[in-house]
């Protein structure tokens, strides 16, 4: 693949991130867009696991919760500086993924789904029940991040930070996909047995991408906690995990731009539908079903296929 083509998705995302604020007229716009970038970061990571390695995780919000509670609990109760807390949270998520990854990733299909689901529930239960540290179901305030002596609170600043994190995440994801590990992952996705036969260390390749996706989720979780200045156990909950998986599939498995589109659609829909409060779930469910029935490969891959067919 040509270099330009390879990095095209990253360029598209970066361009949107840089140009979009020109059309914003209120802090609300910045807030919603920032939520999209944060979700997109986690979704890009999960898409590496689902779209490239073909492994599903129904507990990824657990890693997000770890990142979020690290920047909330460590500075509040132990006086750890926010940035160090962030690093600790992200490293912890990676380490946990590394330790549980081997036994869990041996499981296949729906069994893998239920095992990751269980892990996510365990994380959620800890955040919910260790109320002395986490504030329990009511959640807790997150101390503001301080960079170079200034406290970061303006949503515009968070827009640039979250967007930069997402673009960087996309760039690293593209590089990973085109690395030897990435090729190994695609081989595993197509046929695990065939990959094994040609000498791919299947267990190692899966583990690598699992750890990476956990780190993405933890960073996204920490960003979300900082910009909302508040965190509660729902961030690690089952519904949030399902939401991430849905974003991946809706946007398109294995598509970086698709990850951002999926995150954008599922973040924007509830915002657009707040006026119809009672009908919100009804409409979201209906849209989700319709899109998946008629664009079964996800939004971006289906559209690309259509454009290519037009072109030829």
């Amino acid at each position: 693949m040509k270099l330009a083509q390879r990095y095209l998705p990253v360029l598209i995302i970066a361009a949107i991130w840089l140009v979009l604020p020109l059309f914003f007229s209120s802090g609300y716009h910045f807030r919603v867009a920032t939520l999209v970038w944060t979700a997109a970061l986690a979704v890009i990571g999960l898409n590496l696991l689902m779209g490239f390695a073909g492994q599903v995780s129904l507990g990824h919000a657990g890693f997000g919760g770890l990142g979020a509670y690290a920047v909330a609990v460590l500075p509040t109760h132990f006086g750890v500086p926010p940035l160090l807390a962030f690093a600790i949270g992200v490293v912890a998520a990676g380490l946990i993924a590394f330790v549980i990854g081997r036994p869990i990733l041996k499981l296949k299909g729906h069994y893998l789904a239920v095992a990751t689901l269980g892990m996510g529930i365990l994380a959620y239960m800890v955040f919910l029940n260790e109320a002395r540290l986490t504030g329990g179901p009511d959640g807790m305030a997150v101390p503001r991040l301080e960079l170079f002596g200034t406290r970061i609170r303006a949503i515009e600043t968070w827009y640039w930070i979250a967007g930069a994190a997402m673009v960087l995440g996309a760039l690293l994801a593209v590089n990973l996909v085109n690395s030897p590990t990435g090729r190994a992952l695609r081989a595993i996705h197509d046929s695990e047995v065939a990959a094994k036969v040609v000498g791919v260390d299947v267990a190692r390749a899966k583990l690598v991408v699992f750890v990476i996706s956990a780190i993405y989720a933890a960073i996204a979780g920490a960003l979300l906690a900082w910009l909302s200045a508040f965190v509660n156990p729902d961030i690690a909950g089952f519904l949030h995990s399902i939401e991430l998986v849905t974003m991946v599939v809706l946007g398109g498995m294995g598509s970086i731009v698709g990850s951002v589109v999926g995150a954008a659609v599922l973040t924007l829909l509830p915002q657009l539908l707040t006026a119809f409060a009672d009908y919100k779930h009804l409409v979201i469910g209906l849209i989700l079903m319709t899109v998946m029935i008629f664009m079964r490969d996800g939004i971006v891959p289906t559209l690309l296929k259509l454009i290519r067919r037009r072109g030829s």
Partner: protein
Amino acid sequence: MAEFVQFAFAGLTIGAVYALVALGFTIIYNASDVVNFSQGEFVMLGGMTTVFLGLWGLPLPVAALGAIVVTVVVGLLLHRLAIEPARGASAVTLIIITIGASIFLRGLAQVVYDKQFHRLPSFSGDDPIRLLGASILPQSLWVLGGAVVIVTGLWAFMNRTLIGKALVATAANRLAAKLVGIDTSIIMALSFGLSAAIGAIAGLLITPITLTSYDAGTMLALKGFAAAMLGGMGNPIGAVVGGIVVGLLEAFSAGYISSSYKDAVAFIVILAVLFVAPNGLFGRAKVERV
């Protein structure tokens, strides 16, 4: 001893509901390979529809029957309008469609019914039955009895009737079933209707004990799915055993350890089992053909 019996009955009661949800997962999965995440909404619809038909003036038995009919219709429509058009899509796409359906049904219940908690009167009074020093709600016996009737009825249906045997054949090998003249798409529709009916019955039996609301289905689907996986996906006996085990684990850990971590204990055991037996307790290892 009294304490033990008390916890055991609580566990069996909720376990029976998980078993019925897991059975619903299994029936649809066997007939169509779809993991139906709106299974919990069938349970919710069973409970909520009975409540509201009752509020609109129908006597309880009629309301219960009406709720089962309504839920079956919803199950058949789900198959016809959402699953059938997506035939041939990947497993994960189908799962997302059923998740969409589950959000949709929750939204529908919120609009047609309401967002409050509701309960049904117990079917035969609230006077506890004394047994070995423990007091047992009569409704628990309704739940357990209902589960036993459904499981035996299902067993007889699968082994004694032609349609039931067609269902089993479709589960075993869809292509072979087609070749011997079984209309597998009718069988798939049947499996959705059957799962919906089982879910609805579970819902109206348990509502007098646990209450219900438009979003009561999520947690039940989660536990039912875990129970089905614990038993071994696709194995009906495994689903029932898995459900009972999860229910008992929950009740005993809530009673003897801590109620705030009861959900965690069930999942820790499931993880431990899967690490030892990666295909569940009763699942057969799938041989992948290359």
